């Protein structure tokens, strides 16, 4: 019997939501790590019982729990993230040089094949790798030192590396995104990196077409088409079909193309989902309606999905790591809100219902499909 496990990170702890393959009746476990911010938690594709968690606090810093039994028990592993060599400076909000300082882990991406190998995207933006189950971390400093690093500036949420996508056909090819530097690609497992931002246009930077400086909010990939990436930028929804060499806008008929999340249906590589947010100063959904927009054509043509979602007086946000899909058929789609709701659709977005309604503000949602 298949089932799903939804890993929810919130402002004040983590929750684990489980259901069988029907995805109707849910069990809720938590709060785990009560009172701590859980920016992200993710299970290993190679061993679903292995789950990594980013637990942090403005007072007490970064902690990294790991579970080897599917979230029943947790062990604290390594939390020492030291930049390689002389850390140097990036650009501060006012453009002045600012020392690189580790603040927190935004995203954990376990290797596709080895449960002990896991990547961490951190603030201030850098990528780290552990090959011993999270005990020790080494910076892949070729990213920060490839040349444009001193020009990277933080977005409002900080200079964060928040997206890591590993090409399932070639694990040495990895795509990452940084707010507000842009998207980058390695083809040698993280030793060397190239900015891949051609085609992005951002009016909030002096040169709207600059090589770096774009506030990319999220990237998504379908496992069968690793050359095709989808992007929710600060403003604009974009796609590339040549692994980032050139991007084109696919915002089409969206009511607003500002937003944070973007994801791809597991069974349909051209079916994608976004949650439009009104604007960068009003971080809530458009028109007081919580609507997921789905495109079955890889962008440009979008339809609102509203069944089961609040359609009046709703002013929540959906943050960049707070949407995920399962691997069942039909594909389940999940997202969490700043109001503490986690919604699930067991039918690819046609209908929605809340799994939970009253959690702390949701920072991240990941789904594991269990057999």
């Amino acid at each position, binding site marked *: 019997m298949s089932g799903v496990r939804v890993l929810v990170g919130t402002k004040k702890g983590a929750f684990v939501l489980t259901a069988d393959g029907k995805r109707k009746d849910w069990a809720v476990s938590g709060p785990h790590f009560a009172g701590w911010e859980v920016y992200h938690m993710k299970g290993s594709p190679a061993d679903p019982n292995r789950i990594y968690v980013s637990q942090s*606090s403005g007072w*007490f*810093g970064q*902690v990294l729990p790991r579970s080897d039994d599917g979230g029943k028990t947790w062990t*604290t592993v390594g939390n020492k993230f030291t930049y390689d060599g002389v850390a140097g400076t990036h650009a501060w909000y006012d453009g002045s040089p600012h020392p690189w300082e580790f603040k927190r882990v935004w995203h954990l991406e376990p290797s596709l094949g080895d449960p002990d190998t896991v990547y961490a995207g951190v603030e201030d933006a850098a990528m780290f790798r552990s090959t011993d189950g999270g005990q020790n971390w080494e910076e892949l400093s070729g990213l920060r030192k490839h040349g444009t690093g001193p020009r990277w500036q933080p977005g409002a949420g900080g200079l964060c590396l928040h997206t890591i996508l590993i090409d399932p056909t070639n694990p040495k090819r990895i795509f990452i995104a940084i707010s507000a530097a842009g998207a980058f690609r390695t083809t040698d497992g993280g030793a060397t990196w190239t900015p891949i931002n051609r085609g992005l246009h951002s009016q909030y930077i002096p040169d709207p077409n600059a090589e770096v400086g774009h506030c990319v909010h999220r990237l998504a990939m379908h496992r069968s088409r690793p050359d095709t990436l989808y992007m929710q930028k600060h403003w604009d929804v974009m796609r590339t079909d040549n692994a980032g060499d050139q991007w084109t806008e696919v915002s089409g008929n969206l009511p607003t193309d500002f937003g944070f999340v973007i994801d791809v249906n597991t069974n349909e590589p051209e079916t994608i989902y976004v949650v439009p947010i009104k604007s960068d100063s009003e971080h809530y959904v458009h028109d007081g309606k919580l609507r997921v927009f789905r495109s079955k054509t890889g962008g440009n043509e979008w339809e609102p999905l509203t069944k089961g979602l609040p359609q009046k007086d709703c002013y929540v946000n959906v943050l960049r790591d707070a949407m995920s899909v399962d691997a069942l058929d039909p594909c389940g789609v999940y997202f969490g809100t700043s109001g503490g709701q986690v919604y699930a659709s067991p039918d690819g977005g046609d209908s929605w219902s809340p799994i939970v309604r009253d959690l702390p503000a949701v920072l991240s949602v990941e789904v594991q499909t269990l057999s």
Partner: protein
Amino acid sequence: MIRVVLPPPLRILAHTGAEITVDVPGAVTQRSVLDAVERRYPMLRGTMRDHDTQRRRPLVRFFACEEDLSGEPPDAPLPEPVAEGKEPLLVIGAIAGG
């Protein structure tokens, strides 16, 4: 034995009650007490002071005997009642944020 009172988030992390006791060999200072706490509870490494610089994290404070000792040098002796186990060293999370 030296008594140390941890703030609630660190109690959760270390799976302890409010007060712990640690054996501190030699001089009783902020550094030697924190070293002993981190030896016994390795999951607390990096939460009270920086891994590399060993500097106190900005929103962490150390109180004892009704005094704020946060600005004292890490190798300065702690007050005698703390060294004698009569009073605890309090690790405090500053009142800030949400």
